[in-house]
């Protein structure tokens, strides 16, 4: 699976005479040596012939290492993942990450080391593949029937628990009355049933970004519903850019 919703191609990033891009003082973590190394990566990957081939081999090795790092890290945290063919998964992740990187090479702005920029593609691919595999045989529940189970008066003795229960009751009404059917499905799947967002995106043929926007809009409605019922949360409810 490659990352959806990201445009590819474009010009090779331009650096000025001292190898700096236009990010100013906030780019303090990128040293001049790192900038030169990043520029060299871009030049080699943008060239033709043997130099490019060598760069591709080197980059793939780095991506493979990053993918293996991610798979090992997650395998250590989950017994469900221990039976998977991790080497094959790492190879697939590195392959897909390399394709994505070459497609988006023109978008590298030199705001980080090139290798850091590249690593995130490999980590993303490995994590997304693992989440997909972990959920491949599991049913994804999109209906809202499960969510009233969150309300339980037993043990609600402390004032905080009482308030939490009041909010959950109010949220149950708001989910039914104020969310669109799509918002309700997405909220139930992601926030209540713990479905990974990219797994749901694949099942619904959409993107992680689009689903998160739906989730966010639903959450904003729920926060507003709490405020309207005098049960607002302490934090503010400013609109977002997301």
């Amino acid at each position: 699976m490659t990352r959806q919703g990201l445009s590819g191609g474009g010009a090779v990033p331009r650096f000025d005479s001292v190898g700096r891009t236009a990010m100013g003082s906030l780019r303090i973590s990128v040293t001049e040596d790192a900038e030169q190394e990043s520029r060299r990566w871009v030049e080699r990957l943008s060239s033709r012939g043997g130099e490019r081939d060598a760069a591709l081999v080197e980059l793939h090795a780095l991506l493979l290492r990053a993918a293996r790092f991610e798979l090992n890290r997650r395998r250590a945290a989950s017994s469900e993942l221990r039976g998977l063919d991790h080497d094959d998964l790492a190879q697939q992740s590195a392959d897909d990450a390399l394709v994505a990187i070459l497609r988006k090479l023109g978008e590298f702005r030199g705001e980080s080391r090139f290798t850091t920029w590249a690593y995130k593609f490999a980590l993303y691919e490995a994590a997304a593949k693992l989440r997909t595999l972990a959920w491949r045989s599991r049913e994804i529940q999109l209906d809202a029937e499960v969510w009233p189970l969150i309300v339980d008066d037993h043990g609600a003795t402390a004032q905080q628990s009482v308030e939490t229960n009041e909010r959950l009751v109010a949220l149950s009404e708001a989910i039914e009355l104020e969310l669109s059917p799509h918002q309700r499905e997405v909220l139930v799947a992601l926030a209540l049933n713990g479905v990974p967002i990219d797994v749901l995106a694949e099942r619904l043929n959409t993107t992680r970004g689009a689903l998160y926007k739906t989730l966010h809009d639903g959450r904003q409605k729920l926060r507003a519903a709490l405020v309207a019922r005098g049960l607002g949360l302490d934090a503010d409810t400013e609109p977002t850019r997301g």
Partner: protein
Amino acid sequence: MTGYAAADRDRVLARLTGPAGPQVGCEECFDQLDRYVELELAGADAEAAVPGMRVHLEGCSACAEDHASLLALLASEAHSVP
């Protein structure tokens, strides 16, 4: 009907309502992740450089995992350099 324990109810409430405040979306999060993590590791104010990133990471578990992974990978590299 079996209900959730108190701690679970708090967690469910947080997941339903999400974090407050302006935040970036998943696309911008991925776009800025490498820069954000390097700034964090350098001890700089990454949130000032990428406003809304921290709130998004609180609200999006998948992006939070991507962030934690990149942070861990770079940290492991830093430790492995002689």
